[in-house]
């Protein structure tokens, strides 16, 4: 547990105030943690996921001997210390090679975790072409009936949405600025298997859980003769083939608290939810006026450009 800090000056007070709970939250900050033996593949996966998550990402460059499923206290400490609420932990051992753990916290406590194993991996760098600019929100695409039926996959969807998607109330999107899409598809099973109900909540064993394909594509628009363009996709990277491993479900009491919705007034949503518009005001005539800061002019610079009598020159 961290000690409570009392701000000693206005700047640190502003920083602490920014960490206070808000009605409308900022996107989650994710910390990328290396386990004791991450391995090359996992390191690459984490690097690529981080490049998609930037700028809301913190990289821990040192190895940490942690086992989140056994003791999550380190995650909780880091969450508080860095004001982060999402973790991507990479680790690799003989029993569970190339594993990635997604964990998220609520109020400084771990809410839920999900471990996946990386089977195939194509890094961003291996795929040529322009890359998405950092801070750009991707489109998310999930394809499979299991995303609505199987609790494990529902959890994975929720975690991935929390990691990549910045759901903003009253936000907007530049239609021309759509750059990339993250697509998550669950491997289909032969129709006989799915019909007989092998895949479902009852079959909760990692050996039966089908693979998950995570692909990232660059979105490009082509003319369709209408206002809505035709979408075509080209590989962007990274490409991951994942297998489901361990998980922990959220504590129902904690989840209930986490799912509480703020009561927002419509007026507040329209006026930008208390986001301060600085140096702007509407004058009596109804015109929006901005105020800019003009720094003090360096008049000595003027001096040099004009010729002065020698007696008046400063030397």
């Amino acid at each position: 547990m961290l000690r409570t800090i009392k701000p000693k000056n206005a700047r640190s007070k502003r920083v602490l105030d920014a960490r206070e709970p808000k009605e409308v939250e900022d996107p989650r900050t994710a910390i990328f943690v290396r386990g004791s033996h991450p391995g090359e593949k996992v390191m690459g996966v984490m690097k690529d996921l981080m490049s998609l998550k930037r700028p809301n990402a913190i990289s821990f460059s040192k190895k940490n001997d942690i086992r989140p499923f056994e003791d999550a206290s380190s995650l909780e400490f880091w969450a508080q210390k860095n004001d982060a609420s999402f973790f991507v932990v990479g680790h690799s051992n003989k029993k569970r090679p190339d594993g990635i753990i997604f964990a998220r916290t609520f109020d400084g406590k771990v809410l839920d975790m999900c471990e996946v194993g990386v089977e195939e991996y194509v890094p961003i760098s291996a795929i040529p072409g322009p890359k998405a600019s950092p801070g750009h929100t991707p489109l998310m695409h999930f394809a499979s009936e299991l995303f609505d039926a199987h609790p494990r996959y529902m959890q994975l969807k929720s975690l991935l949405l929390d990691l990549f998607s910045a759901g903003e109330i009253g936000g907007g999107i530049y239609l021309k600025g759509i750059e990339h899409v993250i697509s998550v598809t669950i491997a289909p099973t032969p129709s006989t298997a799915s019909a007989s109900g092998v895949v479902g909540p009852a079959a909760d064993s990692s050996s039966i859980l089908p693979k998950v394909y995570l692909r990232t594509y660059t979105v490009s628009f082509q003319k369709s003769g209408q206002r809505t363009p035709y979408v075509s996709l080209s590989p962007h990277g990274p490409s991951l083939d994942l297998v489901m491993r361990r998980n922990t479900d959220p504590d129902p009491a904690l989840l209930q608290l986490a799912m509480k919705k703020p009561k927002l007034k419509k007026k507040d949503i329209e006026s930008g939810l208390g986001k301060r518009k600085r140096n702007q005001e509407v004058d009596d005539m109804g015109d929006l006026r901005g105020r800019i800061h003009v720094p003090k002019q360096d008049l000595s610079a003027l001096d040099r450009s004009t010729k002065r009598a020698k007696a008046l020159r400063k030397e």
Partner: protein
Amino acid sequence: MDVSSIIASEQTKQKSITVEKEIPVEVDPGLLTVTDLNLLDYDTYKQNLEEFLRSTARDGCQILVTSLFSLPVESTPEGPLAKLPEPQTQLPRSKPLPKPKAVTKWEKFAAAKGIQKTKRDKKVFDEEKQEWLNRWGRDGKNREVEQQWLTELPNNAGTVSGLFHLHLSRTEFLFYLDVDYDPIKASREERKNRIAKNEKQRMRNIEHADRAQATPAEDRKRTIEKTLAVSRMSTASMGKFEKHLDGEKKLQGVKRKATEQERKSALAIASKLDGSSKKPKPGGDDVLNVRKAIRSLSKGKGSSALVRNSQKGKPTARGKAKAKR
């Protein structure tokens, strides 16, 4: 010339943006997310994985983009900005909902009385100088008296209020008058007192807010600590000889309040020591010592002798004068 055939051929060249799905896909434009719950085709998946994934993603993406382009658009210098609706999928929060801010005593009072909050300007206009001054801070208006080089002394300078109504003698009046009265010091003291009062009120509001937000467990702990502190201080020696327990906090600022009986007896002792409540001397004050006067007039014979003498004849002139002084 018939152009319909050319238009038709142009239209066939352009790709269709409509996507057919058995079950309509779930689109959440607020989260820029699309979920395709249709059963995926196992055979195409087995044949060509990458192509299968890409075509599935394209179809879903096309539906999402179509829904995004149908949103209300605001034109901005950077291009059309689509207003996103509220997300349908709810994701867990990362921090609890903010607690409502505690009301201060003044805010409570103002709400009850219907007093509207008015914003005070940071600047005030000075009529004499004809310029705007800071209300507080550097060269603030609140320090005007402290900073000006000359201050006019009012007639009642250095007096306490109500002094004029007391009908005091000159000596007594001078006794109560503050001869060292300094207007600068007085003004500064007044300002500092206002600040101190405000700080006291602020701290009290914080304390009230803390107490209101405390959980029942915290509340109980506080009461227990308070009771313990009071009981430890309630010995005749005010806890001086109490056994100190390990890990016990040192009591700070705990003062025992005296009972009414104790207060009275203590005051009585104090006044006795002070001498102010001494019984008045029999038959006299500080100016005239009656006993001494009688002894002197009767030449040491006592008051009865004096009475006898006065009945015989008129008292001596000397004696009369002395007695009257």
